[in-house]
């Protein structure tokens, strides 16, 4: 069955207020008391058995954070967040160290099942190794480092990755097991003083993924983390650090979803990528957090700092994102093109419906010679939502021959939503070539009627037209993610017309 139709069927089964992933998992969790103080920072650090240097790093960030104020320049509007009214740490009750999925709380596994996450995918998780000679090279593999609430519960495929020399583990483990790498790279792309939310994250981050790919290694599988916020009122502060050493390649997938609830939930993640000479990092996100109900109540606040550093010559970092969820999205995955001949890419689909507010885009900072960047952004606004693309392309004095191509397309569905494009372009080197294209269009009644006359329902028609609009970006996603994303796009536009 074509994905579009499958989507539509799913859409039909949901009514407006019933967020598909709106359920909670009943597991015991261990929480720190509400609020934020040096004590809480120490508590988090202790819970994770962190070395002293890590604690000091956190404390420094915390003290810095106290001096900072929340940024207000984004085109988003929300009630003031009381940072003392949030929990900063929650973890499933500690069990003994997990060596296989069988030991994981079945409730947690059930949650993943409901989400349709392929965690239990047959051979992969049964750990069934194909017999020698029987290996099917076409079979794509995904290693899942599952972050459930604030603690990584299981890491699969560790063994195979280990064989390749790839380190893929929760960052809390990496702090203990590979302190030299973490100390060298943590905060080297997004410094602790970077911005209000990144600094907060540095102080209280709970867990996240750590990846190191050694020189010349092509990571043998897609690496994947599924985030999920499950504790009521728990701010989720993920920290991800990915390092691709010289000549290596890694593709990382991130997908998110959260249960329905009334109180707003704060999420402030930090992702840092480092690509050395000739290394390639491909980072793909499908984000589907609870966007709030049909009156705009509830929903996740998503204030994320994602940045990649093309530190080496000829290195490449590519961001692909499909953003459909969250009440508020504040997110600008960026590339610092430091190495000569390095390149950065940003492919984005941002969909807003209901009362969602999206302010998202990218920054391409050209520092090295002959650096190039490409931005393809597709914004779709429906319902009463506001969708803003905000992007910065800049070439510094030494960035001779910098090139950028930007295309921002916005599609409006209905007449109560808004699409905005705010590009900032700075060239301090006269040899830079920057191109910017932008379009805004409305989904036309004639196009919808044409599709409906051919037998498609209204919602199928919208889904089809929108999937066509975003095709250039969907093609950038790894196959398995593209299918998931296509479904998500139609689901999130449900009820947007008529």
């Amino acid at each position, binding site marked *: *069955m*074509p994905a*579009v*139709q499958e989507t539509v069927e799913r859409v039909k089964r949901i009514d407006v207020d019933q967020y598909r992933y709106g359920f909670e998992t009943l597991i015991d969790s261990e929480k720190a008391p509400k609020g934020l103080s040096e004590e809480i920072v120490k508590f988090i650090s202790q819970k994770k058995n962190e070395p002293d240097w890590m604690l000091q790093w956190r404390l420094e960030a915390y003290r810095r954070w106290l001096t900072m104020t929340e940024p207000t320049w984004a085109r988003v509007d929300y009630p003031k967040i009381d940072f003392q009214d949030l929990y900063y740490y929650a973890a499933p009750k500690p069990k003994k160290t997990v060596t296989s999925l069988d030991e994981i709380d079945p409730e947690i596994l059930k949650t993943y099942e409901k989400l349709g996450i392929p965690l239990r995918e047959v051979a992969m998780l049964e750990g069934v190794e194909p017999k020698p000679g029987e290996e099917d090279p076409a079979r794509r593999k995904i290693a899942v480092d599952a972050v459930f609430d604030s603690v990584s519960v299981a890491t699969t495929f560790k063994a195979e990755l280990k064989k390749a020399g790839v380190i893929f583990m929760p960052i809390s483990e990496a702090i203990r097991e590979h302190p030299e790498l973490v100390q060298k790279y943590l905060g080297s792309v997004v410094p602790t003083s970077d911005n209000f939310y990144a600094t907060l994250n540095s102080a209280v981050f709970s867990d996240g993924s750590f990846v190191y790919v050694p020189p010349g290694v092509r990571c043998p599988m897609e690496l994947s983390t599924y985030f999920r916020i499950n504790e009521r009122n728990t701010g989720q502060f993920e920290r991800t650090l990915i390092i691709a050493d010289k000549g290596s390649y890694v593709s990382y997938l991130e997908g998110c979803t959260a249960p329905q609830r009334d109180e707003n939930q704060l999420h402030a993640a930090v992702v840092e990528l480092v690509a050395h000479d000739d290394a390639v990092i491909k980072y793909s996100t499908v984000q589907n957090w609870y966007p709030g109900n049909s009156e705009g109540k509830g929903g996740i606040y998503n204030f994320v700092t994602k940045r990649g550093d093309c530190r080496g010559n000829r290195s490449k970092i590519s961001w692909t994102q499909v953003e459909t969820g969250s009440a508020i999205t504040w997110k600008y995955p960026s590339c610092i093109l430091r190495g000569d001949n390095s390149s950065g890419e940003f492919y984005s689909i941002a969909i807003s419906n209901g009362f969602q507010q999206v302010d998202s885009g990218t920054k391409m900072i050209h520092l090295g010679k002959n650096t190039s960047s490409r931005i393809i952004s597709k914004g779709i606004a429906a319902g009463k939502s506001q969708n803003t693309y905000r992007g910065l392309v800049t070439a510094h004095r030494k960035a001779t021959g910098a090139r950028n191509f930007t295309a921002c397309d916005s599609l409006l569905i209905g007449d109560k939503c808004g699409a905005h494009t705010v590009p900032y372009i700075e060239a301090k080197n006269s040899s830079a070539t920057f191109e910017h294209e932008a379009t805004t269009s409305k989904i*036309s*009644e*004639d*196009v919808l*009627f*044409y*599709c*409906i*006359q*051919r*037998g*498609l*329902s*209204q919602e*199928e028609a919208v889904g*089809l*037209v929108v*999937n*066509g*609009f*975003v*095709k*250039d970006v969907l093609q950038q996603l790894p196959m398995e993610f593209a299918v998931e994303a296509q479904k998500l796009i139609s689901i999130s536009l449900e009820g947007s017309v008529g």
Partner: protein
Amino acid sequence: MALLEVKDLKVRVEEREILHGLTLTVNEGEVHAIMGPNGSGKSTLSHVIAGKPGYEVTDGQILFKGEDLLEMSPDERAAKGVFLAFQYPVEIPGVATMNFLRTALNAQRKARGESEYSTPDFLKKVREVSKSLNIPQDMLKRGVNVGFSGGEKKRNEVLQMALFEPSLCILDEMDSGLDIDALRIAADGVNALRSPKRAMVVITHYQRLLNYIVPDVVHVMSKGRVVKSGGKELALELEASGYAQFEDAA
């Protein structure tokens, strides 16, 4: 047997009455031509039959196979076998024609409670049909009507007609924007689809199209009504004397 019965149909668009009591009966296997000057209500009629939003039916009824068509949503009408070939087929960027055809065909089949086509079966069917219409395979890989010439767009409409096998085809100004060769190709496609079970309503300004698609019945519309009906010779008569003679009749 009457396939389509339009009875005393009155239609308004934004408070203005466009059709003032139109009556038309089309039997299975027949080809009807509807001719008339600009603004006579020809396109309104085709849109109302297909269910395009924006038209208010204030009186009368439309029966299709004896069922009340006005009670059905446009996609239900399509599944029941009503097909409208558009005067200006729209472009849908990023949606491959092949994907569009399959999604639409399966949506219709599903609505009728029939099994959906599997990918190989569908491909086989599309190849057969497009071959019979001389439609190149690479056209099917392009976005729906994106960058198509006028002739290609109309051929794409005929392809869909052939694929969906509707029992009623309404061709709205099929000749507009076509040169004589493109017109002939499109008309050949339509003629190949004539069958004793299928009826066609051909809407046109000009007699020219009717040299290629020869109708059984010709209706003249003026000011929102059918003012005269006759055989194919009526079209020739019109070509010679123009529409002016009917203005008073209406």
